[in-house]
């Protein structure tokens, strides 16, 4: 685990040296998991409620390296979540762009998206299953449904909240609507759009897994449920950890995209990109000061 900046949640915690910090983290970890392990082993905690950490770890090891049973479930779940994400984001952003361009659409159609959003998406699961069946399409549909709103509202907000002076600058330069959209609106909105995509990613995974809980023959969600029905708690917990891993890998992917795309928001990245653009320019145009 990484530290949260010392001026954030950890404000007021005494600053320790790096070695002391590592020790402190190690100690907390040991107390937490050691206590849990001991409690389990000595029968204070019922294995049927909370299996020992080592049992869960062993189960994970088995799934990944002995039977390899997890891979198919992993892949299918990631596939469903990703497809749902792509579809949900496309619809959300498509609607947002339409609403940003057309005031009429914004006024008369966009309110439905808001009503839609305040309806808990998860509650629609039975309908989704009824409409799309028990296969992967219902998982994708629910994932798309749950994740469509953040990209919609963020994209719309981003496209409409452009600095007034920037808009006047583009107008005074005789810009077309299309140029304004491409060169001003979209890049200005990118940070908030990407924030929306991060939320959508989490939503897509939740949607997929909930749909799998309802009905599925494959996927980490149904795997977990099967374990739980058989009172196989270490298996269930192992499946939960796999879900965390999925969430973590998708989250990391989004962070990477943020890092790459929004270079102008980080000083180290600006230096990198600036050097790159300079090289490109000099290659293309030569050193103009010499001419």
């Amino acid at each position, binding site marked *: 685990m990484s530290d949260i900046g010392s001026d954030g949640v950890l404000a007021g915690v005494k600053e320790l040296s790096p070695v002391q910090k590592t020790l402190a983290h190690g100690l907390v970890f040991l107390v937490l998991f050691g206590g849990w392990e001991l409690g389990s082993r000595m029968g204070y905690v019922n294995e049927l409620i909370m299996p020992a950490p080592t049992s869960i770890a062993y189960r994970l090891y088995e799934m990944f390296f002995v039977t390899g049973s997890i891979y198919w479930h992993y892949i299918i779940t990631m596939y469903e979540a990703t497809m749902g994400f792509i579809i949900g984001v496309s619809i959300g952003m498509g609607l947002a762009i339409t609403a940003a361009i057309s005031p009429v659409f914004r006024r008369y159609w966009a309110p439905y998206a808001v009503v839609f959003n305040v309806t808990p998406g998860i509650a629609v699961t039975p309908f989704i299953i009824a409409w799309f069946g028990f296969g992967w399409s219902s998982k994708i549909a629910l994932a798309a449904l749950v994740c469509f709103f953040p990209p919609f509202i963020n994209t719309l907000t981003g496209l409409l909240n452009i*600095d007034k002076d920037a808009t006047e600058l583009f107008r*005074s330069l005789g810009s077309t609507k299309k140029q304004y959209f491409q060169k001003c609106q979209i890049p200005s909105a990118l940070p908030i759009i990407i924030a929306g995509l991060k939320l959508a990613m989490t939503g897509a995974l939740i949607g997929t897994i909930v749909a799998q809980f309802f009905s599925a023959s494959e996927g980490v969600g149904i795997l977990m449920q099967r374990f739980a029905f058989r009172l196989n708690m270490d298996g269930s917990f192992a499946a939960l950890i796999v879900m965390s891993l999925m969430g973590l890998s998708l989250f990391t992917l989004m962070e990477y995209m943020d890092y790459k795309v929004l270079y102008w928001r980080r000083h180290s990245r600006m230096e990198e990109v600036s050097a790159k653009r*300079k090289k490109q320019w000099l290659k293309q145009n030569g050193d*103009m000061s010499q001419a």
Partner: protein
Amino acid sequence: MAEDIVISGSGLRKQFNENVIAVEDANFTIPRGSFISLVGPSGCGKSTLLRLISGLIEKSEGDLLVRSNEVVGPRSDIGMMFQKAVLLDWRTSIENVLLPDEIRGTIDTDAKKRAWDHLQLVGLKDFEFSFPRQLSGGMQQRVALARLLQTGADIMLLDEPFGALDEFTRERLNDELLRIVEGPDITTLFVTHNIQEAIYLADQVFVMTPRPGRIAAQIKIDLPTPRNIDMTTTPEFNNYVQQVRDVLSGHLDGQPL
């Protein structure tokens, strides 16, 4: 014709709504190559007058001619600069300066060379590939000035362009601006709150008074050019300052604040 008139307004009026008359009965002519300062208290309609001339907003009544044509919208011989630099954060200095050419589809080696030269002219050598957030406020305004020069506009409308900067930087940039726009070709309309600055820079000062926004006086400044900072302590200079003050206070006396 003795003087070549570039911009003229007569009976010009802009009303935003029942209560707000931002510009009322403005009558003025601006000769080619002149530097006009527009000074007045906050909210008196300076920006509105500039935006009318630039074609960004429509007048309510009266005549407004630029090169003898009614203003109907933005035109390529008019360039603007604002109090904020309004740079695109994701573009380097040179890419920002090239924006006008990109929009007009005139980007080529020649345009790139001019952009490069404009950055050198405003003192940004070695910052051609910096991003706005890597630059100080003063340097950002220099990029904005280079972008304005890149438009090739010979009518420059500057709305408190250095108003957000510290006094030292502002004075330096004012002098550099004077050097750049001097000569018979470029016509400049410069908005400021600062009476000294208005007089120091201009051939003519338009004094605006609020509610409704009127051009209350047009004062010709007969100080020798090029200007230098020592002139600001001469009696003639102070005389002009007093004149402007009189117009403003004469109007403000007896007015609720």
